[in-house]
């Protein structure tokens, strides 16, 4: 049996020994242990080093408030820093290492900082390192940064899975101590949908540490019976290992369940952690209370810990934290704990009570000396406590002990209830901050509500849950309260806390992890940082991984005492999520890597893959960029070929991703007329028209086509990227702006596969699959009509050209898309058809001076991009009409769309280059615009570009300097018309059939 393991007792399974390592050394413990309890059992008291001074530190708590015993667990890609040893469930093969020390935990060079601590006082870095200025970057900051942090993260890809889930309930009970268990039972028996969450792996809260009998049986048995009944109720969900970390709007709670963190090798069927978003009609905060440390000299030496924790180690884990334990207290609770420790077989050598004799006397453990009106001024020992120095009535005394249990009173765990901004309320009666009243939906129960005894906690759980049951319109069963043997007296008015034990001989710590001591708070006050929030920021008190669970209230109390105020007037710093830190992985859930956002696949995806497409992400879409052929040495070769094929023969391109919206109703025409800036009222049935939508501020919103399929039936297309936004825009117009208009519409994007067939041979190829007559007379430019394909399949045909060639867009029901595309390819083979992708599409449109998002970037007007003629100012109204008239949108020196051709035809123009007048010095003032799109034109045999140039349309023929400083390039280009190829649009309807 290890050094500190008690011979009997504890909720550990002595039949299941587990071996593990800490800093490379083998240890053993039992199933049911935490890493901390197993280490303590093995006599390890030094578990960490503090942040700033690298002071040796031991475990302080037995729960999630632990500031000191932070370790790194696991190896390789599963390595995880900053785990609280008190929360790590022991399992076989667990490996843990200590942090923030070099070369070892026992010998840490960083501890030199402790020697220099007077220099490293709060905020010291603001006052120095300023001279010489280069030194900050080169020397000081790197030094500070090297010292930063606690554990080391791997930043390697995580092999484990995470997920998120929703849960809904009538009552969420947070905390499964006596209050929470009784509340859950009351509500559960009444038939409410109940969720009971507790961050511990075993439900029972303080009942697991309680040493008295309940209904004649051990308290933990009593807890187990309650848990068993709850588990059997179909309307109750138990969530052990689940920390409720946040209270959000509408009584939605966030919780993280550690599903498999306690297993050596997680199964891949389950996540390792799961986030629950719990929507609760009502919630109870039965989170208990945190014991308050005492601030005295040397209160951070390994072996000094919270008294309640010492008791938990004894009662729950069967571990004596020391062989000679001294209890330091300022309240009755410490005396009770001392007695309980003794009951559990831990030797208590002394009880040091800061209060004078007037304090209530409680039964004292046998053999323990009691010193009342005494203070601790220092502790002895180096890496672990060997004794302490007390002063009573001016007399100093040294006491031998190997553990110090401190009991400064209790702080209700108010955290969650304060996350919406309500501040905790100082109570003079309780001498503690109590949770604020945040309304009936979220209430505190048990010790969290300031109640101190077990009987009160049990009763409060029943009472609060009964009220909820009634509130939700049900009747509650009577849940009898159990008998407790030797109930302690409710202490009534609490004694005033001792915020600082006077006469400290060494640093008296307030925030253990961040090494904030009482002197730092005094300094903050002296320098004007006395506001609780200023003091926090200046000293970093309560900013460590424990978020001030132990230090927050003490800092308030100390500041108040120093200012001569009540803690009520000083208040406490803001509580915010997360109650305890939550992993990125859990919060991200399954949305990672490929699953980060959904994929969208075109109905022609299979066709494009079979054609050997190279794909590119375009928003959520996966789209063919180009279709390489054997022997083509790079993407440019493929793209050039695709462009030439379209210009000389014919090409097929998937345009299914365009947004497609069908509109119906008597007012559809009027509706469209108000949405587009160009006229739409007189569009004939069977015809399509290019349309431009503006935002209300006059900038171009999106472009596309409008086709009139029937008298009151339209189909519009949007760009792929804007499809969703345009849909919302239409819905806004129809529902909010003009709800009286009789128009209905629906997206039909998903229903249709759409392909563009472009090139002089397009008609011949298409005719092979379409039954209808495709002659220029039957299907003239901008025709939009229903067609029948070979075999009777119905489709829609549009004579729309983006490339400037004779072109059609054919839409067929999506399920047939691939077969139709394959048929077209087969029919086109004789004509030299090729599939073309986004890259070729882009070249084709630049050659024709058509704009896309590179030009329509939300800052351009129709006139800027050469489409000013489309603005139908004579229309009474359309979205964007009025504000497009503003001076700034019509000024003559705005950037206007032009074409650019490099003077030296070999120079490749790059999009993003800026433009300067020939000979002008580069400066923001001289900036003439920028290149929006650029490509090599296979049709012309040299690079071309589109640009927005100040007053550009007046400057055709001028030479401008293309200035690409990022690539250290500058050269001249000639300003030309943006339409490079076939400016008279002769190719749309070739005179001779090709």
């Amino acid at each position, binding site marked *: 049996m290890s050094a500190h393991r008690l011979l009997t007792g504890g909720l550990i399974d002595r039949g299941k020994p587990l071996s593990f390592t800490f800093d490379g050394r083998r240890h053993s413990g039992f199933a049911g242990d935490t890493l901390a309890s197993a280490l303590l059992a093995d006599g390890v008291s030094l578990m960490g080093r503090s942040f700033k001074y690298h002071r040796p530190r031991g475990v302080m708590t037995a729960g999630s408030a632990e500031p000191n015993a932070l370790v790194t667990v696991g190896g390789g890609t599963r390595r995880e820093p*900053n785990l609280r040893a008190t929360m790590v469930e022991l399992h076989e093969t667990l490996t843990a290492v200590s942090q923030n020390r070099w070369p070892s935990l026992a010998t840490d060079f960083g501890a030199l900082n402790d020697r220099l601590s007077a220099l490293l006082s709060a905020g010291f870095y*603001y*006052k*120095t*390192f*300023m001279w010489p200025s280069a030194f*900050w970057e080169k020397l000081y*900051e790197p030094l*500070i*940064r090297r010292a*930063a942090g*606690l*554990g*080391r*993260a791997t*930043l*390697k890809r*995580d092999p484990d899975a995470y997920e998120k889930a929703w849960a809904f309930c009538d009552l969420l009970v947070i905390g499964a101590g006596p209050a929470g268990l009784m509340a859950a039972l009351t509500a559960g028996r009444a038939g409410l949908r109940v969720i009971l969450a507790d961050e511990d792996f075993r439900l029972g809260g303080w009942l697991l540490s309680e040493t008295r009998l309940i209904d004649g049986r051990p308290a933990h048995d009593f807890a187990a019976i309650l848990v068993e009944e709850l588990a059997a109720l179909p309307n109750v969900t138990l969530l052990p290992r689940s920390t409720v970390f*946040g209270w*959000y709007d509408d009584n939605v709670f966030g919780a993280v369940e550690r599903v498999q963190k306690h297993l050596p090798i997680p199964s891949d069927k389950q996540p390792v952690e799961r986030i629950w978003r719990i929507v609760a009609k009502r919630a109870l905060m039965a989170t208990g209370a945190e014991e308050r440390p005492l601030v005295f000299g040397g209160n951070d030496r390994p072996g000094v810990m919270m008294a309640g924790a010492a008791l938990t180690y004894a009662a729950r884990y069967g571990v004596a934290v020391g062989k000679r334990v001294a209890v330091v207290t300022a309240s009755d609770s410490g005396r009770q704990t001392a007695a309980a420790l003794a009951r559990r077989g831990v030797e208590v050598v002394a009880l040091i009570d800061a209060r004078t004799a007037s304090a209530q006397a409680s039964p004292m453990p046998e053999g323990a000396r009691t010193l009342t009106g005494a203070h601790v001024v220092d502790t002895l020992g180096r890496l672990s406590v060997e004794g302490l120095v007390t002063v009573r009535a001016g007399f100093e005394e040294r006491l031998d002990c190997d553990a110090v249990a401190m009991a400064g009173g209790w702080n209700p765990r108010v955290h969650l209830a304060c*996350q*919406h*901004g309500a501040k905790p309320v100082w109570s003079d009666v309780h001498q503690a901050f109590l949770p604020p009243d945040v309304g009936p939906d979220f209430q505190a129960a048990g010790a969290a509500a300031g109640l101190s005894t077990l009987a009160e906690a049990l009763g409060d759980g029943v009472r609060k849950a009964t009220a909820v049951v009634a509130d939700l319109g049900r009747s509650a069963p009577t849940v009898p309260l159990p008998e407790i043997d030797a109930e302690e007296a409710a202490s009534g008015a609490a004694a005033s806390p001792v915020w600082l034990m006077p006469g400290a001989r060494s640093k008296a710590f307030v925030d253990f992890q961040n090494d904030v001591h009482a*002197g730092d708070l005094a*300094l903050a006050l*002296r*320098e004007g940082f006395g*506001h609780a929030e*200023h003091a926090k*920021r200046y000293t970093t008190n309560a900013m460590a*991984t424990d978020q001030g669970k132990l230090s927050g209230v003490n800092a308030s109390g100390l500041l108040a005492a120093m200012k001569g105020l009540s803690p009520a007037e000083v208040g406490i710093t803001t509580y*915010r999520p997360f109650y305890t*830190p*939550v*992993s*990125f*992985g859990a*919060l991200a*859930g399954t*949305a990672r*890597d*490929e699953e*980060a956002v959904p*994929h969208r696949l075109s109905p022609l995806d299979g066709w494009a893959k079979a054609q050997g497409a190279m794909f590119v*992400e375009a928003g959520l879409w996966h789209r063919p960029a180009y279709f390489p052929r054997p022997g083509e040495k790079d993407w440019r070769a493929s793209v050039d070929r695709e462009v030439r094929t379209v210009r000389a023969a014919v090409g097929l391109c998937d345009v299914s991703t365009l947004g497609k919206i069908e509109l119906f109703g008597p007012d559809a025409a009027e509706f469209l007329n108000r949405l587009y800036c160009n006229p739409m009222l007189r569009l004939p049935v069977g015809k399509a028209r290019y349309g431009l939508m503006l935002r209300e501020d006059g*900038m171009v919103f999106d472009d596309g086509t409008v086709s009139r399929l029937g008298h009151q039936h339209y189909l519009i297309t949007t760009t792929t990227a804007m499809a969703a936004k345009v849909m919302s825009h239409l819905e806004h117009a129809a529902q909010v702006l003009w709800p009286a208009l009789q128009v209905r519409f629906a997206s039909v994007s998903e229903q249709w596969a759409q392909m563009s067939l472009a090139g002089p041979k397009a008609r011949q190829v298409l005719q092979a699959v379409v039954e209808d007559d495709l002659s220029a007379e039957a299907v003239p430019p901008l025709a939009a009509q229903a067609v029948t394909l070979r075999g009777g399949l119905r489709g829609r045909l549009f004579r729309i050209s983006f490339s400037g060639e004779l072109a059609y867009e054919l839409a067929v029901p999506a399920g047939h898309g691939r077969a139709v595309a394959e048929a077209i390819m087969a029919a086109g083979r004789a004509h030299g058809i090729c599939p073309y992708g986004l890259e070729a599409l882009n070249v084709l449109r630049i050659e024709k001076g058509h704009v896309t998002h590179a030009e329509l970037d939300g*800052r351009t007007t129709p006139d800027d991009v050469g489409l000013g003629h489309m603005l139908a100012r004579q229309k009474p109204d359309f979205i964007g009409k009025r*504000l497009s008239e*503003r*001076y*700034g*949108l*019509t000024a003559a020196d705005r950037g206007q769309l032009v074409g650019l051709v490099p003077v030296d035809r070999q120079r490749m123009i790059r999009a*993003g*280059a800026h433009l300067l007048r020939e000979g002008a010095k*580069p400066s*923001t003032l001289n900036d003439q615009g920028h290149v929006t799109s650029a490509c090599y034109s296979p049709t012309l045999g040299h690079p071309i570009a589109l640009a927005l140039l100040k007053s550009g349309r007046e400057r055709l023929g001028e030479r401008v300097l293309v200035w690409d*400083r*990022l*690539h250290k390039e500058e050269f001249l280009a000639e300003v030309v018309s943006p339409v490079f190829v076939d400016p008279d649009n002769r190719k749309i309807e070739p005179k001779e059939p090709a």
Partner: protein
Amino acid sequence: MRYSALSLLKNALGRNLGWSPVWREPEPKPHYDVVIVGGGGHGLATAYYLAKAFGVTNIAVLEKGYLGSGNVGRNTTIVRSNYLLPGNEPFYEFSMKLWEGLERELNYNVMLSQRGVMILYHSDSERDALIRRGNGMWMEGVEAELVDREGVRRMMPFLNFDHARFPILGGLLQKRGGTARHDAVAWGYARGADRLGVDLIQNCAVTGIRREAGRVVGVETTRGFIGCGRLGLAAAGHSSEVARMADLALPIESHVLQAFVTEGLKPCIDHVIIYGAGHFYISQSDKGGLVFGGEIDGFGSYAQRGNLATAEHVMEEGVAMIPGLSRVKVLRAWGGVMDMSMDGSPIISRTSIDNLYLNAGWCYGGFKATPASGFCFAHLIAKGEPHPAARFFRLDRFERGHLIDEAGAGPQPNLH
């Protein structure tokens, strides 16, 4: 008291008992030449420069909470001057230059850390937009560098280069960009202003603006009426509320933006990294916490706290960019109330009321602007005319159509 290594040593020997308050806690006087509403970074910097550079000394800064309690104390501390549009770039570069001398100027270490700001790109169109931006920076004489994928990999090997959906193709680096210590900026300016005689009045909420004959004569506050010759508003997220006291409606909506910090880690991320495929930015504080943020929550809010859905979304993007963040734990989340303007760019401007000046519309990017904003606002208040670097930030630009819309999102603030 001047700060230096020597003073630190001297005081250490005196057990640090010799330090004196960094600012006085004066009672408000009945009248000041200039009253600034808002003890955030911009208000404090304005007061400092008014006193230091423009010879105005009878100044008060009125702050409803504690100094620095607003957005200056809750931002992700990124400073950079890599803006896209000519209306913005010169101003932010002016600010960058002031940052570079700030420690000496204030005798206060604001811990400016020019560790480099990298904006990543994931597609050709994003690359082109960054090239445009980088060249625009060079136009203003600001150094920028386009780094290719391998270059980025050398600097930040932990990024997700193999993401099949949003592969990292490269980035635009501004080496002079970086971070500064948020609180220190507020405290440094406060200390500097206080030493020049400015009255910093905390716990003093402005509740009304008193006007006579079309001019402001003073403000009603929770500490009584305070008269003033000129009034400057620098209330950030609360600008609309304060301006309403003078019957002004502003082109501003207040939105909540969340920020987050992880547990302390040994140094692992050496730069400021901005994820182009989403909306995520991260850097590591000198204490070791990873400080990061994402998009605004999207709805109007004065609550200084956000919601879980947005937080989860931020984490999703974080893990998409750096898969290894998965096992890193997030310590704390908080929110700030931001003054989102209708084109996403700031306002430093006169108003329709003669002696009332406005500094607002900083969106989620005003921390880096603090020095220049203070300087330019002081210039405007003292001289009555705009500083050249801020001449485009006029309130009437919306009416006139001279918008400075970096995102191209139009007049819907939650899209900026």
